[in-house]
Each structure stands twice: as structure tokens, then as C-alpha cells.
């Protein structure tokens, strides 16, 4: 999905600002952190930087005065690029905003018009997981992605994580956004949340796309997850970043995309260890098998052929347990299917949602 560069709100009283100068041209390649334009108000001037590596397109011309939140330009991310965490006010505006839902602050991004599709990322990830998908494939849809509690820029909450809490977050988010029914696209833990919502509130869910997931982990994987939680409890994220990356990406992808992996490692290291520990324990204990029989909506299950964390067998069992579910196995793909194989994932999702 393209990342918008928006007119920032640089002060309490600021409602509009002037795009004083573009420092790059339409179609230029930009790097995350590179200054792309300057904006000014009657009080201040500021430089805006790119949030991601990619190709920029100019939306608003130099010299124009526009409202806060207006899209000034769009960056089409390079393949596998990861969005750089933004600082301060730049996160405000319509492209990504902090909403209060279920009593906590959730970082939400919404674009497009039409029936809603909600993208739910997995453990120790963020909405940036979906950056590689081609937004053009989803014409006529409202695309909503958000950071789970304790992840990305959403609120870090004390205490245990439960699927019930995460599902309540999603229900509240849909209510806040006035979405009555949505197609859910969940990756790993995100797919568990999607299943839980579809089982508990079937009227809210139009379809389910379950990526790289399982209804319940085998005991050996549960043990590994509990070990990860314990290592992070005592040693912080540093102690588990490498293992998380090994579980997420297949070796060939790691070797071919060192910059992507490094960016994700940095993102993992900046995560809140207590939140990740709590979410990891929740995932380890999750067991949705009794929920699958009641699912009524159209469902597709996607899995990478080389997924070592949730191998294809688990997806096969999942698809068999859900009436009418389709199963798609993606070749040359590990656990992070939306990052490793964005093109086929986009195609399968776009056709389904």
C-alpha cells in the first residue's frame, strides 16, 4: 500500500499550511528518512521526511495552501520496504491516526471507499506487515489496518493478553469507524482474532482470509513459544529477536533480503517486551478448534509451503475443519507471506474480499 505524505499539524492552532518547496521530483526514488518537502505556516517551517523506501508521486504542487491532513504526496514502497516509525505529529491525519477504542489507543490506517476490508497483523509485527501489498488490487474497497494492542504505535497495556481482549478491541474499532460488516484478513495471531470475531459475531464478518496460521499450536511449538516468552521476560527483546526472525522468514528470503530483515529486526527490538511476552503466551495457549465448526462465512486459508512456524499441515487441518474453506499453498514462501510473496497474496486477497 502506498504511504501518504500529509500536511502535518505543527501546533494546536494550526488548521492549514503551505507546501513551500518540493525537494524531490515526481517519480523520484526516495529513502526512508530523506527530506522530501518543506511546509510552512505563519509561525514555523518544517521539513517532511519519507517514511519508507520507494518511489514518490507529487499530489499537491509547490506554493499551495492546504488543510492539515491533506495528502501532499504518495510513496509507493519498494518491494519488501518497511515503514520507518514516524515521530510526533506526523502520525496525525487521515492516513494513520490514533483512535480510542475499547478504552485504549489504537493506531489505525484507513484508505479507499467501499465495503471494508480489515487487515490484522500477527505477533510482534505491526500494520507495516501489509505495506508490500498492491493497493491498486483492492479498488472499490475501504482498506483498514491497525496495530494490535501492545504492538506498533498502539497502546501498551499492562496485564495478560487474551483473544477476548483483542477481539473486543476489533469490535470497538469497527464501531468507532462505523463499519457494520467487514472482510477480515488476518496473519498468524491476527487470523486467530479474525476467527474469534467471526465465531462470536458472525453478522460482523463478510469473509475470512486466514494467512499463515493455525487453530492451535502443537505442543512442541507451544513449548518454543513459552521459551521465547520466558527469554524475553528475563532478557528483553534482544534475547528473542533472532529466533523470531528465524521462525518468520525462510532462509532463502533472509539471505536475499538482508535490508528487509534488518529493518524488521530493528522493529522487533523496539517492541515493548512485556506486551510481546503477554501476546506470545496468549498465542501459545490459543485453541480455536472448537470455534471452527460454527463458521459460516466464505473462508480461504493461505500458507507458505516453507512456513516453519505454522507449517502447511496446520493450514490443511484448519481448512478441513471450516466448512467450504479454500486452501492455497504458496510456493517459495515462509511464515511472513505478505512480506515474502506480496504479489500472489495480493491477488488471492483481492479476488476474495
Amino acid at each position, binding site marked *: 500500500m502506498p504511504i501518504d505524505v500529509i500536511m502535518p499539524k505543527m501546533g494546536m492552532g494550526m488548521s492549514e499550511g503551505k507546501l513551500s518547496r518540493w525537494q524531490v521530483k515526481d517519480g523520484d526514488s526516495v529513502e526512508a528518512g530523506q527530506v522530501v518537502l518543506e511546509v510552512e505556516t505563519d509561525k514555523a517551517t518544517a521539513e517532511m521526511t519519507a517514511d519508507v523506501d520507494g518511489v514518490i508521486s507529487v499530489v499537491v504542487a509547490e506554493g499551495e495552501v492546504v488543510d492539515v491532513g491533506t495528502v501532499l504526496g504518495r510513496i509507493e514502497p519498494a518491494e519488501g520496504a518497511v515503514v520507518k516509525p514516524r515521530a510526533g505529529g506526523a502520525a496525525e491525519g487521515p492516513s494513520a491516526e490514533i483512535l480510542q477504542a475499547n478504552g485504549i489507543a489504537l493506531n489505525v490506517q484507513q484508505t479507499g471507499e467501499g465495503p471494508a476490508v480489515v487487515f490484522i497483523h500477527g505477533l510482534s509485527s505491526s500494520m507495516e506487515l501489509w505495506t508490500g501489498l498492491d493497493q491498486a488490487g483492492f479498488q472499490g474497497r475501504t482498506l483498514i489496518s491497525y496495530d494490535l494492542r501492545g504492538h506498533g504505535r498502539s497502546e501498551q497495556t*499492562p*496485564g*495478560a493478553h*487474551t483473544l*477476548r481482549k483483542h477481539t473486543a478491541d476489533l469490535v470497538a474499532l469497527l464501531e468507532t469507524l462505523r463499519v457494520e460488516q467487514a472482510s477480515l484478513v488476518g496473519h498468524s495471531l491476527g487470523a486467530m482474532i479474525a476467527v474469534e470475531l467471526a465465531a462470536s459475531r458472525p453478522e460482523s464478518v463478510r469473509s475470512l482470509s486466514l494467512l499463515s496460521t493455525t487453530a492451535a499450536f502443537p505442543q*512442541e*511449538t507451544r*513449548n*518454543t513459544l*513459552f*521459551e521465547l*516468552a*520466558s*527469554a524475553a*521476560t*528475563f*532478557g528483553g527483546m534482544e534475547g528473542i529477536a533472532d*529466533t523470531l526472525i528465524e*521462525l518468520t522468514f525462510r532462509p532463502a528470503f533472509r539471505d536475499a533480503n538482508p535490508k528487509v530483515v534488518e529493518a524488521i529486526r530493528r522493529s522487533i527490538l523496539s517492541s515493548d517486551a512485556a506486551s510481546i*511476552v*503477554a501476546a506470545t*503466551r496468549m498465542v*501459545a*495457549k490459543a485453541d480455536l478448534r472448537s470455534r471452527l465448526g460454527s463458521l459460516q462465512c466464505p473462508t480461504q486459508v493461505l500458507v507458505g509451503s516453507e512456513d*516453519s*512456524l505454522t507449517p502447511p499441515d496446520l493450514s490443511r487441518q484448519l481448512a478441513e475443519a471450516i466448512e467450504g474453506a479454500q486452501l492455497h499453498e504458496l510456493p517459495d514462501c515462509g511464515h511472513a507471506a505478505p512480506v515474502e510473496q506480496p504479489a500472489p497474496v495480493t491477488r488471492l486477497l483481492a479476488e476474495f474480499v
Partner: protein
Amino acid sequence: MAVATAARTITIAEALNESIRLEMRADPKIVIMGEDIAGGAQVEHLEDDEAWGGVMGVTKGLVHEFGRERVLDTPISEAAFIGAAVGAAATGLRPIAELMFCGFLGSCLDSLLNQGSKLRYMFGGKATVPVTIRTMIGGGFRAAAQHAQTLYPMFANIPGLKVVAPSNAADAKGLLTASIRDDDPVIFCEHITMYTLKGEVPGGEHIVPIGKAAVARPGSDVTLLGVSLTAVHALNAAETLAKEGIDAEVIDLRTVSPLDEETILESVKKTGRLVIVDEANPLCGLASHIAGVVASRGFHWLRAPVGMVTAPHSPVPFSPVLEDAYLPNPQKVVSAVKETCSKAS
């Protein structure tokens, strides 16, 4: 997916946690109990995160993996839950109880002195009491007289109890695993200041046998003997002494009871000099007992009187200045070694 088996550098607290977790996975008869070892009184059910994981966080996370039926928060009554642990052990479970401070022995002594330690003997071997009591020893935490004691000599004085006290993370994991698997009651002593001490620890199953001391540093001029934190003091002192031309051998006792007399005597035979470092009170203590063993079995090898660096016969002071003066430290060990080595023979 393989369970991690590679050695990693982790803290003593994490090493203990790992030992308990692996043993609980392997043996459904293991339960753990103690004050706040899961979550404390505010927590009603599993969906709420544990607040403590024990006062030092050693059991953090275990309630999530094993549930509240096997990770039991107890009332603040050592008499009740140490009694329950001993009773459960005698009747088929393999409990691990956390006696927060060893001074709380005062509240539950009967369970250990008259019950747990005696049952196997009194029933002619037909009963076993496979309980492990994890408990904190030691000063340096400014925790005052009741919460800074070093009571392994009192435990060791009771036949039927085994008493261990590791000095590093690898031994902490290996000795705790051995203690849990042992069919006798084991008092597992953890020094209050050492939980964050890091060391390389083997992944997967790791066992250090009870009753076997380690030669932590080979040397030829003098034997330094310590246990738990005092073994670390001895190693630090040995480094200082090496710079001054004194080559010290360091024995980390690891187990107080049963006592590995052979390893001690072998070392004394080689060096001819012995300095014992012990944080416990000295009267009828560990240092004096080992001095007695060496005097009766190895006197002919001694080239100088046995040196002893111990706490004085006094409660642990609360004043930081006085507590520092009270406790053994590497400087005191260095001085004692120099005195021992200066004596003629």
C-alpha cells in the same frame, strides 16, 4: 521446531526458571508453591498476568504454561505451605516450595526437622519425601537481621536433609534439576544478591550431581574454599593473589550436605594450606566443621593453621556500613591467605 539446546548466557534467575519449567514439562507430579510465586492476592484467574513470579521473579511465567493447579499461590503461612509441601511429597507429588527467606525456617521448622527429614528413616525406606525447598540466603541487600541470614549450617545439621547452594548460573540450573529429581528433601539455597549474575548455561537437560564439589580454579599454593557467594569471593581473591605470585586453588563446595570431603582433602594434600570462606555464623558452622574434617583426616598435609573468613557471631546489621564490615569479601580473603602463607613450615 527444536527446543533450544544451545548454551546461552543467562542470569541465575532465568537458569532456575528454566530448570523448573523443563522438569515440570517432563513430570506432571511436580507442583510449585509459595508466596506470590504466581500472581499474588489480586489475581482471580489466569487471564491476569502474574504480578511477581516470586519475590525475586524466579517463577515468572510458569503459571501461564502450567496453570494454577500446578503453580500455587499460598497464604503467608510457612507452617501451612511447607507442611503441605512435605505432606504432598510423602503422598506422591514432587513439590517445589519457595521459602522466601531462610529465616522463615523459624515458622516451619517442625515440618522439616521432625517430619520431612525423618520419614524415610522412620518408615524403613518405604516412604520418600521428594520435596525441594528453594530459599534465599545471605546479606548485602540491606534487608536487616531477619531477612539476611545464612542458615545452611542449621539445615545441614539435620540428618535426612540435603543442602545445596550454587555459585553460578550453570550450577543453579544443574543443581536445581538434581534437587527436584532427588527423592529426599533438598534445601536449595539461593543467595539474595546473585539472581542477576550471568553465566553460560547449557540448554536442554543439565544436571549437576548433589554432593560433588567443583575445583573452580586449579592452583598449587593454597586452597580457598567457598560456597554460593563466598565461592565467587574466593575466585576474585585468587585473581588478586595471582598478581602477587600466590597460586590459589578454589573449591566451590556447591553442596553443603552431604559434604564432599574427598575433594577438599585432595586439594589440601596438594597445597598444604586451607582458607575457608563462609558467610554463616561461625559457632558450630560450616567453616569450623570443614576445619575439623581437615584436622582429623588431613592434619599431616597441613603446612599452616586453617584460615577462616566468616561472619562474626552476631545478627546481620541493618546499617550498611556495619553490614559491609560484617560480610566476608575478597579483600578479607586476600588478607587471610597472606597470613596463612606467611606462617612457617
